[in-house]
């Protein structure tokens, strides 16, 4: 089989499999969270029930453009993951990811609701907080493997974690922001369901909200894919570490209170500037000398 055919199969598997896996992961997340809080928790399929229910609700939008933005959010999120799993350019992947989140912010900004408005602003702050570390991750992977292509990075013989331990820790740190977990779930959260805590999604309802939910599943699988890249030399180890990382995020989520946006910004940038930058410099000198 040619490489194009294999790539096509992987992308199709991703398109079908990612929402299923992402949904199951979200279901497990809710069960584990409930157990950590001493509750029994919903069935694993609960996220799918939620999305299917949202699909069957009445369609309503506060303005004409809102649904377009959310659709673009979903589309670019799928695109991000598809390029990533096809072994494409990591920079293209990361910029598509940013574009996707900007569409969600635009969707939230397009309504006049103050909660949605502030939620969108807080989402922008979050984007600003995690973006440096994401770029450092891409730069680090390039320095270590001399390629921006995910396929080359995944095929790299030495374990990436060996070169990039600091960047890995930094990436897991900002992953908490990306997964919308406490203490950094500023713009919208999976748990509390009131007012500002759900800011970003206040004005979305029914099928539109379902689209956002599905986009999050795609996003989570893609993010765990990046975690996997650090351990790609051994696929089994990679998957185990990705799952362990997700478990760690759930643990952090349940044991931390939400912090202010100032602290989120500062800490994410400090982590990027120390762990990320130091690691980058060390790799640069180690490999170029």
């Amino acid at each position, binding site marked *: 089989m040619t490489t194009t055919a294999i790539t096509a199969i992987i992308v199709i598997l991703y398109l079908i499999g990612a929402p299923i896996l992402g949904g199951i992961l979200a279901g497990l997340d809710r069960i584990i969270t409930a157990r950590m809080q001493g509750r029994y928790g919903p069935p694993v399929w609960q996220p799918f029930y939620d999305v299917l229910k949202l699909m069957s609700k009445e369609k309503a939008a506060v303005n004409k453009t809102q649904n377009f933005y959310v659709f673009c959010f979903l589309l670019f999120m799928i695109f991000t993951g598809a390029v990533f799993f096809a072994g494409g350019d990591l920079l293209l992947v990361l910029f598509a990811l940013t574009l996707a989140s900007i569409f969600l912010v635009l969707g939230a900004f397009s309504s006049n609701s103050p909660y949605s408005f502030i939620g969108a602003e807080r989402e922008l702050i979050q984007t600003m907080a995690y973006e440096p570390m994401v770029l450092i991750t891409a730069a680090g992977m390039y320095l270590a493997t001399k390629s921006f292509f995910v396929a080359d990075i995944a095929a790299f013989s030495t374990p990436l974690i060996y070169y990039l331990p600091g960047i890995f820790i930094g990436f897991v740190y900002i992953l908490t922001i990306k997964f919308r977990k406490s203490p950094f779930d500023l713009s919208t959260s999976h748990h509390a*369901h009131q007012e500002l805590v759900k800011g970003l999604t206040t*004005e979305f309802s029914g099928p539109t909200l379902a689209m956002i939910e599905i986009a999050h599943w795609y996003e989570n699988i893609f993010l765990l894919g990046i975690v996997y890249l650090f351990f790609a030399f051994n696929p089994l180890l990679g998957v185990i570490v990705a799952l362990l990382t997700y478990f760690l995020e759930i643990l952090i989520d349940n044991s931390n209170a939400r912090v202010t946006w100032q602290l989120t910004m500062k800490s994410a940038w400090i982590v990027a500037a120390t762990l990320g930058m130091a690691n980058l410099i060390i790799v640069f000198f180690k490999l170029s000398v």
Partner: protein
Amino acid sequence: MSYLAKSPWLIHYDGSSCNGCDIEVLACLTPMYDVERFGIINTGNPKHADILAITGSVNEQNIPIIKNIYDQMLEPKVVIAIGICATSGGIFRECYNVQGGVDQVIPVDVYIPGCAARPESIIDGVVKGLGVLEEKYKKYGKKR
């Protein structure tokens, strides 16, 4: 069949209750009763909610608010009156500012008696509401 019955999201509004019923509603979320087992989530957003749970009687000032919340909810939707106050006005019935039960303002589908309504009966009432939700969905589906 729809999945409405498997994932009912609830919004709780407190009319002029004594807070007894409110605390019982919140007790349903605790580890003791854990309504999330049934996929029930307590949202604060009428646009996300399927079930409007109202505790306490209706007075002049909260009539427009209840109507507003009800109008913002998307079809199909169900209203549940929790406690004897929400059902008929209860001990506040004679007050000069009280209109009576919730059904004076918006159509109510399920009445849960009790002063205060116990968490068990609240959960029972919500489950009854799910049947109504399913029926309404069928009617609504025909309209669509």
